[in-house]
């Protein structure tokens, strides 16, 4: 199996299926389109599994490396590879795509082929972002993801979809174009190379580092999103269709965090250290302030969107503590948040498909009419609140430990999330699922069928597995994280 270009296949198989899907037009062929999408997503997921089994956790460098010259005048290579940092995001992306395809099965009726095709293409592009080891290739994938997401939000979204789609597109485009300028600058500084690993060794003055850091910050912080550039996310989430929200929360937000760990920390060690207090402060604001904002939301999707921002605050907090534990905690949090936020949006989608409302006040006592579903949903809620035994606990625990080591007060502030997340999540759960049946619509609800049960059950498995045995996920990370932190620890100033 080693001889197969597994990463290329992981990228291009979903894209190829997606492109074919675009041509399976018409209502009468919607069934064929669904099956084709499911087969495509499953093959794409299966092809990523050998990456996990074949990965050598003791090695710090890139594995499954592929490299061919791509744009010769610019010395740009089609270079792929994954290390412990990026390993898990490839199968995660492919898995979430399978789930999104299943979740759309009976729900999306308007141009289903286009919807599913956009998701498959998006899946390939996002895997490309995680697997690219050439900065321009990274950028091309990074920015190309905007196109399918823009269409997904704009075509299948809610009433204010156009506004949300534009906000999403322009916000992220501004950020990434500034990053492009920084990438070109690094290209010129490194003597004409876009190789990311090569850039770790390029000496840079403090001024240059700070400017590049700011440019990267615009690109990645908008994507994560960090406070105060987060305002596009609630709009995008509320208006996006369920699948769009799932992919947005589970994968696309991770592109930004991944950028920080792949680019900012090792390439700009001095600026990262100098600006770490700012980053930590912004992360803590995200955790605490956004946590309070989530508390007062009346719309379930908005609540989970704000909870996503708060949880991603943990990721950036972990990264900018510059310790093994913090970075690994951040990475674990990214994976875990992928499962949990995806699952939370799916449960909201399940309710929305039946009731066509996301207002918490329109629900109440769902557990009486949908016991199976409520059991799963409550479990995801617990995971979101960081209950030990679920994946949500592991990452937060690691980051809090690292933060306490770094500075007790930062650790204390970070730990308030355990209270805040529990408050807003459990309060929502209480109002939606428990208590007496709220109204006649809730009384008429039907419990989930096999399709919905299956897609949620897969995520339950993942959440519990990661919560009970996180070592499986953290072991392959260690060597690579240490490797990256070495660069982050050594000054580039001359």
């Amino acid at each position, binding site marked *: 199996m080693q001889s197969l270009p597994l990463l290329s296949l992981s990228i291009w198989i979903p894209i190829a299926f997606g492109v074919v899907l675009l041509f399976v037009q018409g209502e009468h062929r919607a069934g064929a389109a669904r099956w084709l999408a499911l087969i495509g997503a499953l093959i794409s997921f299966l092809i990523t599994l050998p990456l996990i089994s074949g990965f050598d956790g003791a090695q710090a460098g890139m594995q499954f490396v592929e490299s061919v010259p791509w744009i010769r005048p610019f010395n740009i290579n089609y270079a792929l590879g994954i290390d412990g940092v990026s390993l898990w995001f490839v199968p995660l992306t492919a898995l979430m795509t399978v789930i999104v395809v299943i979740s759309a099965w009976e729900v999306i009726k308007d141009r289903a082929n286009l919807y599913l095709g956009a998701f498959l293409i998006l899946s390939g592009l996002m895997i490309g972002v995680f697997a690219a080891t050439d900065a321009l290739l990274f950028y091309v994938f990074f920015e190309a993801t905007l196109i399918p997401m823009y269409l997904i939000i704009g075509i299948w979204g809610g009433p204010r979809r156009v506004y949300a789609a534009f906000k999403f597109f322009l916000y992220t485009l501004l950020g990434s174009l500034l990053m492009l*300028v920084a990438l070109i600058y690094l290209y*010129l500084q490194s003597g004409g190379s876009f190789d990311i690993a090569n850039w770790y060794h390029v000496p840079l003055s403090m001024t240059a580092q700070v400017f590049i850091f700011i440019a990267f910050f615009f690109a990645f912080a908008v994507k994560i999103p960090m406070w105060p550039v987060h305002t596009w996310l609630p709009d995008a989430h509320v208006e996006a269709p369920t699948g769009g929200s799932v992919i947005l929360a589970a994968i696309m937000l991770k592109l930004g965090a991944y950028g920080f760990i792949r680019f900012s920390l090792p390439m700009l060690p001095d600026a990262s250290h100098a600006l770490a207090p700012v980053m930590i402060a912004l992360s803590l604001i995200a955790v605490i302030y956004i946590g309070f904002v989530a508390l007062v939301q009346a719309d379930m999707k908005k609540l989970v969107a704000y909870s996503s921002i708060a949880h991603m605050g943990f990721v950036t907090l972990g990264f900018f503590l510059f310790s093994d534990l913090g970075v690994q905690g951040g990475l674990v949090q990214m994976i875990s948040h992928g499962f949990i936020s995806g699952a939370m949006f799916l449960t909201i989608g399940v309710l929305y498909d039946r009731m066509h409302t996301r207002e918490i006040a329109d629900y109440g006592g769902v557990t009486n009419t949908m016991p199976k579903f409520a059991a799963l949903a409550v479990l995801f809620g617990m995971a979101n609140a960081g209950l030990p035994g679920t994946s949500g606990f592991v990452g937060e625990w690691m980051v809090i430990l690292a933060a306490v080591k770094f500075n007790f007060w930062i650790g204390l502030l970070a730990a308030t999330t355990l209270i805040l997340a529990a408050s807003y999540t459990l309060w929502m759960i209480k109002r939606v699922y428990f208590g007496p049946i709220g109204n006649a619509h809730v009384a008429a609800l039907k419990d989930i069928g096999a399709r919905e049960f299956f897609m949620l059950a897969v995520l339950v498995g993942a959440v519990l597995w990661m919560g009970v045995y996180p070592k499986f996920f953290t072991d392959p990370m260690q060597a690579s994280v240490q490797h990256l932190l070495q660069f982050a620890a050594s000054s580039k100033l001359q």
Partner: protein
Amino acid sequence: MNWIAIYPEIFLLVLACVVMLVDLFVKDTQHRVSYWITLVGLAALGVLCGLYYASGMQQLAMARALIVDPMAMLLKLFTVIATAVTLVYSRRYALDRGMWGGELFSLVLLSLLGQFIMISGNNLLTIYLGLELLSLALYALVALRRDHTQSTEAAMKYFVLGALASGFLLYGMSMLYGATGSLDLVTIFRMIAVEPINRAVLVLGVVFIVAGLAFKLGAVPFHMWIPDVYQGAPTAVVLMVGAAPKLAAFAMAIRLLVEGMFPLAMDWQGMLVVLAVLSIGLGNLAAIAQTNLKRMLAYSTIAQVGFVLLALLSGMLNGNGLSASTAYSGAMFYMVIYVLTTLGTFGVILLLAREGFEAEDIRDFAGLAKTDPWMAGVMTFLLFSLAGIPPFAGFYAKLEVLTILLNTGRVWLVVYAVILSVIGAFYYIRMVKVMYFDAPTALSASRAAGAGGARALLSLNGLAVLALGLMPGGLMTLCYQAIANTLH
């Protein structure tokens, strides 16, 4: 007399005359014979230019008035292709509006001849003559719909402003001639570089030449004719004005500014900075306010030209011209990609237009993704390419220009260009929104896009934008070699 060097021009002139004559004698309301003669002639001409380019010929002809070099042959090849594509796209549209006939073909061929002469001009007068031949043919083309008020108005505006621009250019040339005593570009270059010449006269000449060039390219503040002509002229003619001639205008800029006046680069680069900043700013901001698609694309053109200028002004840094080839090949790549995309966008408008329905309002595209998903897809490719989103060709054009510009250390100019690109992206993705998110209106649903050759070619055009986005290296190298071999 070196005849072989000017065979393409001779061939083109003969072709124009033959088409004019044949069309008089063949009775056919659809003018099929003359149309096919034109197309076959253009194909032969394309092959000829390709062969000349492949041979790497570098020769002077007609008493040093014309030059044949790789840049010239490559650009000629592209103008021939662009002209042929324009004709194929225009057929249905022009037939419906009674413009289709021998005079259209011969005027198009004559304008192409003018472009050839501009591209190959090695002498101030030759370049001017080529420009006038091109412009006069275009004025007539814009006015081809005599009974249409808007077209006539556009033609008047175009003519008056175009004549003014020619006057500027000619005045600048006379200054140069007065200062250096020569019309020959190589001699002018040598005189400026070596001889002690009154700098004030030279710089005054440069100012007028740059102004004239800016008129032809459509850079702010010499852009006023572009929106009116794009909106008023028949769509088919807009393509004849806005596609291939841009390549010729680019060649003219290289000939005059680089081959003739490179020693003065520090002077004209400063002017180009102002033109570029204003063009990118005004073009992008004004395009947002437009409801007419043709007018919006006109402002988008102005902004795109600003990007070409950004590359053109990066050739010399602190008196050092080492990066010249890279900079000018970046500008050329940008222009080629721009022309390719423009052909596509106006091609879509032409294809959707019907008798009595121009399809030029942005609203006319509402719900296109439902009524004609394939055309909507092609248009989406083109729009994202114009916006500079990967993986489409326009992104690499912008990437190359930004790299060149950053290499000269003009960081703030780069950041400015990038921020205005985001503003520009707004109106491009608004078109995508209209096509994909909006429901078809009664009017837009009734349209049925044309079928046949134009549709196939348009699909190819859209796919080319994607293919060049996935594999841009080849064309970049081609542009670089052409420029490097021309400038040595």
